[in-house]
């Protein structure tokens, strides 16, 4: 068992070169425990060995950035309260894709748990969660039943964990595409708030300081989860169920309260959660960051099962555990807090100055590895990249609509655009009574009681756009995410990214990743939203079929606390404007739209054209409109185009619009193209709106007036779409439940 053969090395997903490097670092052959430790730390999931080189291109600084990438979460300064205290937010997004495919409920639940720990390990109290979900189509002929089961499990898992923990799940997005049939995506974003003087870091500083293990006991669950997340799926993956961890949100809630209370004693020097790669990752990263070593004995680690080997204890990914370093002599203050909350807390070792991770088992040394090479000097690959994989033609097919109103109904019933209430009503989106705007709007808004400011947040991704052009697709994504924030009056200030791609060892997939990162770098710099952290999830392939390149971005913005306008038209007789104008499109740039996907069942061409400077101008104007109070409703035009945006404005209150357009675009393009930089605004004060738009040099096209229960669009006097709102809304609001509930009766 303990002999290190080429087979054992391969089973740990280490290459022969990587193994040679390990031998060089140690100056000897590793034992099995050491090999296991290296294998998880040098896995793609933990080391970012394929992406690190390119991630360096992302902008990470601004005057607000207190902590950029490299810690458990990014931190931004959001200003002062009335007493002059500085306040900060911590936020990050993380994926739990592979576990959610193998065991949807626990996979998603522990995804929520993991990201919440990343937030409160820094000292912040989590105040919001959002999730970006991607599934195969629910009505897929061969995978539909499985896709429905996965969706049901994932949503229940998120609800179970977030609701019990007591953090509101305030928004997100759910998209369906056959490329996710065998590889769903579950990306969870969390955000927390704290005072700037309450920040904690994952550093093991101070020689002789005690190292304390707190929280759940260590079991055999999740061993090699990090390396599983770094391999493609095969039929055998289904046998990996024991690799998926079990979550206990009650334990996590206790851990949150106990950690924040323990931090307040002032007796904690550093703290880090045990996430992927568990005890291994937390010990070596904390030591590496501080330039210290950690020596500890596994005999003191609370264990759930008897007879666990050092290898198993070090690699376990049992949930709801934290590692912290207390100041020597003050450890009892910390231990008392955990005792009060009924949690295990054991001193397992101490900080040393030799820079070595020294693991003992009942006094006998079982692993001895220099921290820094283990944590920070993982292999770095400049993987070859060619042209991005392209699986769609460039040229458009001939298409013409027989019935544009019927096309709108098709969009309403589609998985991507239909009402997601069935999902988000399972989430407690109000707990903590801060949710000013919850699911179903352009961006979620959570107030911060202490400062009088609010934080807006949005998640965006569009795999079709990024498939057609990774670089331009990502820029559109950044623009849309910022536009969502601007629509609620928030100034975008920072971002976190989740890069979900296929196998980076394929040059055409690596090219997607590189182009996407470079596009993100350009757009995030332009929109002044530095990336403060995130996650890379590669090898999202099943049986050789990669997912669409699916970067997901979470952007946060700031605004004064107040009642938001909302997306829905409110009353009859308000003027409806399209800020930014009708935009341009051609057949080729229709290929990535929802119209092409849902109505034409096709994919081709290029994503819409983006002018970032104009986009910024429109967003600046929209933010001012949102804050001025002259708008009755604000909603951006994105998926589904102008006609769909107007339908969404009509749903909340059953108030639609009679719109007269004046365009030379043919109807399919005019109504459904997804050109960016456009926002629908309704107002009772048209003169003020026009004046404000003019001041910003942004076209404000008057479309018509709001009316009860009617959605009508005409161009040059010819009616294109005419429908009662209630009929369209009925189709939209029942689509998801009817697809899912078919399953419940089987």
């Amino acid at each position, binding site marked *: 068992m303990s002999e290190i053969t080429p087979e054992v090395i391969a089973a740990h997903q280490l290459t022969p070169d990587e193994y040679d490097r390990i031998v060089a670092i140690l100056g000897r052959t590793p034992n099995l425990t050491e090999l296991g430790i290296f294998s998880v730390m040098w896995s793609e999931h933990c080391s970012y060995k394929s992406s690190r080189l390119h991630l360096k291109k992302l902008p990470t600084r601004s005057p607000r950035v207190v902590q950029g990438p490299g810690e458990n979460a990014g931190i931004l300064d959001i200003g002062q309260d009335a007493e002059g205290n500085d306040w900060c937010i911590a936020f990050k997004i993380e994926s739990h894709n592979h576990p959610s495919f193998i065991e949807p409920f626990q996979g998603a639940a522990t995804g929520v748990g993991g990201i919440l720990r990343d937030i409160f390990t820094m000292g912040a109290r989590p105040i919001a969660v959002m999730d970006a979900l991607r599934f195969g189509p629910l009505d897929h002929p061969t995978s539909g039943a499985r896709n429905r089961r996965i969706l049901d499990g994932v949503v*229940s898992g998120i*609800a*179970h964990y977030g*609701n*019990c*923990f*007591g953090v509101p799940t305030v928004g997100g997005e759910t998209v369906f595409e056959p490329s996710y049939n065998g590889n769903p995506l579950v990306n969870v974003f969390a955000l927390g708030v704290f005072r700037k003087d309450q920040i904690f870091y994952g550093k093991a500083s101070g020689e002789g300081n005690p190292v304390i293990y707190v929280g759940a006991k260590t079991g055999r669950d999740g061993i090699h989860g990090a390396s599983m997340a770094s391999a493609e799926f095969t039929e055998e993956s289904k046998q990996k169920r024991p690799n998926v961890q079990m979550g*206990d*949100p*009650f*334990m996590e*809630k*206790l851990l949150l309260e106990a950690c924040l209370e323990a931090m307040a004693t002032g007796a904690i020097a550093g703290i880090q959660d045990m996430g992927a790669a568990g005890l291994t990752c937390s010990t070596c990263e904390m030591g590496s960051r501080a330039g210290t070593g950690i020596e500890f004995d596994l005999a003191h680690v609370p264990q759930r099962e008897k007879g666990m080997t050092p290898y198993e204890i070090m690699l376990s990914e049992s949930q709801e555990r934290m590692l912290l370093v207390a100041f020597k002599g003050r450890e009892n203050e910390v231990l008392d807090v955990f005792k009060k*909350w*009924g949690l295990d807390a054991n001193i397992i070792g101490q900080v040393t100055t030799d820079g070595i991770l020294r693991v003992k088992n009942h006094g006998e040394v079982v692993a001895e590895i220099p921290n820094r090479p283990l944590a920070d000097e993982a292999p770095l690959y400049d993987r070859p990249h060619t042209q991005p994989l392209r699986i769609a033609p460039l040229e458009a097919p001939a298409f013409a609509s027989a019935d544009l109103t019927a096309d709108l109904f098709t969009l309403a019933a589609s998985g991507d655009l239909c009402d997601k209430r069935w999902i988000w*009503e*399972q*989430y*407690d*989106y*109000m*707990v*903590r*009574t801060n*949710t*000013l705007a919850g699911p179903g709007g352009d961006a979620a808004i959570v*107030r911060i*009681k202490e400062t009088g400011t609010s934080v807006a947040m949005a998640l965006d991704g569009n795999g079709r756009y990024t498939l057609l052009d990774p670089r331009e697709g990502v820029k559109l994504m950044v623009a849309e995410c910022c536009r969502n924030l601007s629509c609620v009056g928030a100034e975008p200030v920072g971002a976190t990214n989740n890069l979900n791609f296929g196998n980076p060892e394929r040059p055409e997939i690596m090219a997607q990743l590189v182009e996407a990162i470079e596009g993100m770098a350009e757009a995030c710099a332009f929109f002044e939203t530095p990336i403060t952290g995130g996650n890379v999830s590669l090898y999202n392939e099943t049986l050789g079929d990669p997912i669409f390149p699916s970067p997901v971005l979470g952007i946060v913005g700031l605004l004064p*606390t*107040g*009642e938001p306008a909302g997306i829905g038209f409110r009353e009859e007789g308000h003027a409806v404007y399209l800020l930014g104008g009708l935009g341009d499109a051609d057949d080729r740039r229709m290929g990535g739209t929802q119209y092409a996907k849902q109505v034409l069942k096709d994919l081709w061409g290029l994503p819409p054209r983006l002018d970032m400077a104009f986009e910024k101008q429109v967003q600046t104007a929209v933010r001012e409109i949102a804050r001025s109070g002259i708008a009755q409703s604000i909603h951006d035009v994105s998926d589904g185009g102008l006609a769909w945006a107007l339908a969404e404005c009509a749903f909340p209150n059953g108030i639609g619009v009679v719109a007269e357009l004046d365009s030379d675009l043919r109807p399919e393009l005019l109504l459904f193209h997804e050109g960016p930089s456009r926002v629908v605004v309704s107002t009772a004060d048209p003169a003020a709106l026009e004046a404000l738009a003019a001041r910003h040099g942004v076209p404000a096209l008057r479309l018509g007036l709001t009316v009860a229960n009617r959605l009508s669009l005409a161009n040059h006097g010819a009616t294109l779409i005419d429908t009662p709102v209630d009929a369209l809304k009925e189709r939209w609001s029942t689509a998801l439940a009817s697809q899912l509930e078919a399953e419940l009766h089987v």
Partner: protein
Amino acid sequence: MRFGVVVFPGSNCDHDAWYAVTANLGHQADFLWHGDRNLKGADCVILPGGFSYGDYLRCGAIAKFSPVMESVKRHAAEGGLVLGICNGFQVLTECGLLPGSLVRNRNLKFICKPVDLIPATRNSPFTHAIPAGATLTIPIAHGEGCYTATPETLDLLEAEDRVAFRYADNPNGSLRDIAGILSDNRNVLGLMPHPERATDPLMGSVDGRLIFESLIANLTPAK
């Protein structure tokens, strides 16, 4: 008026309740730790929403054994006011202060949304200030909010005018649309919806204030 908000391990609406009665309604409130027996002079004890003790075994089943509940039971027996919200209602049924029990929602899913409540009696310290004929919009957020009891118990509750609120459009399958009930001496209310979430105009509804204002008016002697 002085409120006491019990903190069980796993309570997660404790701060919301505290914020509602202090910041939004301008009264005093203390947190009451589950391991203590001291109610700190509270006129009204609130058992908040959440997942006390992780809802292991059954919702509220372990909370009933906590030291603070001994004091709460004594407080109730002496005529003191007790308001159990959501998980707090579940605790009240588990410890016998209220009859019946709360089981999984009819659709087996957690449901979070604002619902319309019809006050079924104004004869209680919790409801007397609600205008006649009013419907209250207050959010629910629960997975196990389906109220069940024997037909005899339900008949008794109705005969004694102890149904405090009914759902206008039953979201969870509760028998006889029951959303909240009173104890026999009318000083204990268990309520699945969250009135504390409807005390601030920014949260979309202030109808929950009527319940707290009823309590406050009840405690403030007429001059």
